[in-house]
C-alpha cells in the first residue's frame, strides 16, 4: 500500500522516475542508432552487445515502473510472488518458440520456398512454383543433411507460375483493376 512514503518523499520519487525513465529511453535510442551506424559513419556496435544493452535497459524500466510507480515495493511478499513468479513461465515460451522459428527458416531454405512469406509484386508474377518443389523434390531435398543456402533466385529460369500462390493470383487482378478504375 501507499503511505509508506511521506507526501514529500513521494513527490521526489515521481521526479526521479521521470528523469530515470527519460534518460534510459534516450540511452536505448542512442545505443540503437550508434549500434547500427547512424551516428558515427562506419561505426557499429557488436550485435550481441547492442541487444544486451537494449534488453537490460528495458527490463530495468519495467522493474522501475512495477516497483515504484505501481508500488509493488510496498506489497506483502505473497502478493509480489503470486504476480511476478508466473511470468517466469514465459522463459520456456521464449526458448521453445524462437527455436521453432529458426527451424521454420531452415525448412524454408531447404525447399527454397521464400514466396510463402515474401509476397510478390502484384503486377508481374513469374515466380517459381512452391507446389512443384514439394511434389517433385529437387536434388537438394533428397540430401537432408545439406541445407541449401537461402536464395531468391527465381523468376528467370523457372516459370511454373500461376499455380503456386493462389491467394495472390486471386487478389491481384482485382487490385490492378481497382487502381485503374480510380485513375480513369
Amino acid at each position: 500500500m501507499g503511505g509508506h512514503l511521506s507526501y514529500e518523499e513521494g513527490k521526489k520519487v515521481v521526479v526521479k522516475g521521470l528523469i530515470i525513465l527519460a534518460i534510459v529511453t534516450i540511452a536505448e535510442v542512442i545505443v540503437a542508432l550508434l549500434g547500427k551506424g547512424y551516428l558515427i559513419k562506419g561505426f557499429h556496435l557488436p550485435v550481441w552487445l547492442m541487444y544486451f544493452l537494449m534488453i537490460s535497459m528495458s527490463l530495468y524500466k519495467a522493474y522501475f515502473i512495477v516497483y515504484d510507480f505501481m508500488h509493488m515495493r510496498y506489497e506483502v511478499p505473497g502478493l509480489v510472488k503470486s504476480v511476478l513468479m508466473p511470468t517466469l513461465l514465459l522463459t520456456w515460451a521464449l526458448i521453445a518458440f524462437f527455436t521453432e522459428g529458426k527451424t521454420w527458416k531452415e525448412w524454408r531454405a531447404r525447399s527454397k520456398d521464400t514466396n510463402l512469406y515474401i509476397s510478390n509484386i502484384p503486377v508481374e508474377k513469374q515466380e517459381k512454383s512452391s507446389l512443384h518443389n514439394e511434389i517433385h523434390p529437387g536434388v537438394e531435398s533428397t540430401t537432408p543433411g545439406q541445407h541449401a543456402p537461402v536464395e531468391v533466385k527465381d523468376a528467370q529460369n523457372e516459370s511454373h507460375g500461376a499455380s503456386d500462390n493462389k491467394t495472390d493470383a486471386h487478389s491481384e487482378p482485382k487490385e490492378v483493376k481497382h487502381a485503374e478504375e480510380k485513375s480513369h
Partner: protein
Amino acid sequence: MADHAIHNHDSHDNSRLWDGAKEPFKASYGKLMMWYFLLSDAFTFAGFLIAYGTLRFSSPAWPVPDFVFSSLPGDIHHKPLIFVTIMTFVLIASSVTMVRAVQEGHRYNKKGVVFWMFLTIIGGLSFLGCQAWEWTTLIGKEHMTIHNNPFGSHTENGVYLEGDGHDIKAGDQFKVGDSYLVHKHDGHWAPLSYKNEAGATKTQQLGPKAFGALFFFITGFHGFHVFSGVVFLLIIMINAWSGIYAKRNNKYEMVEKIGLYWHFVDLVWVFVFLVFYLL
C-alpha cells in the same frame, strides 16, 4: 456498506474483510484482482510479441525498424526513431502524472486528483494522436497494410539499375540486409530493378507480409488498451470530482486501481518499443 468494509484497511470490522478474518495479501479484493488481470494481460501481450519474434526468426530477411519508422510530421524523413521516442516520452509523462493523482488521493485532495487525472487523460489522448499519425503515414503514404508490406530488405549485395530519382539513383549500391521501400505510382507497385553480384537482373520484392500484420495488430491492441484506459480515466475522474470516492473514505482506492492499469499500459509499451522499434 460492503464496499466500505472491503476497502477500508483501518476498519475495525475485520470479519467483513473478504468475509474472512483478514484480507489476503493485505490488499483489497479489487486491487488484488486488478493485479491478476494485469498478469493475464501481460501473458496476452507476451504471446503476441513472442509470435513476432518467432516469425522474424523464421524469415531470412526482415525490414530494419530504423528504416521503417523514420518519418516525422511536416514531411521530414530519414530521422530514425525520433517520432517514436517522442511517443514514448508522452506515455511516460502521463504515467508520472498518474502517480501524482494517486498521491493526492491518499491525502484526500479532491482538486489535486482531478487535476492530475486530467493531465493523464491529455497525455493518453496525445499518445493516441501520435499513433494515429504514424498509422496514417504507414497506410496512406507508404502503402503498408495487413496484406502488403512494401518494406523489404535485400538478401544479396547489388547495384540499382534504375533509380526513382529521389532517394535512390541508378548506380547506387546496396548490401545484404539493407532495407528498401517499394513505392507505388498511379496505384501500381513500382519496384526498382537491380543487378546482383552474380550479374543477374532482378526487381525488388515486397517484404515479409507478417511484418505489416504484426505491426498493426500488436500496436493496435496496445492502442486499444490506451483508448479504453482513457475512457476509464475519464469516468473515474468525473466520479472523483462528484465526491463519491471521498465518501468511501478509502484513500481514493479507485484512482489507485486505474493507476495500476495505466502504468501497465506504459509497461507494455516499454516492450513494444523494444521489440518493434529498437531490436
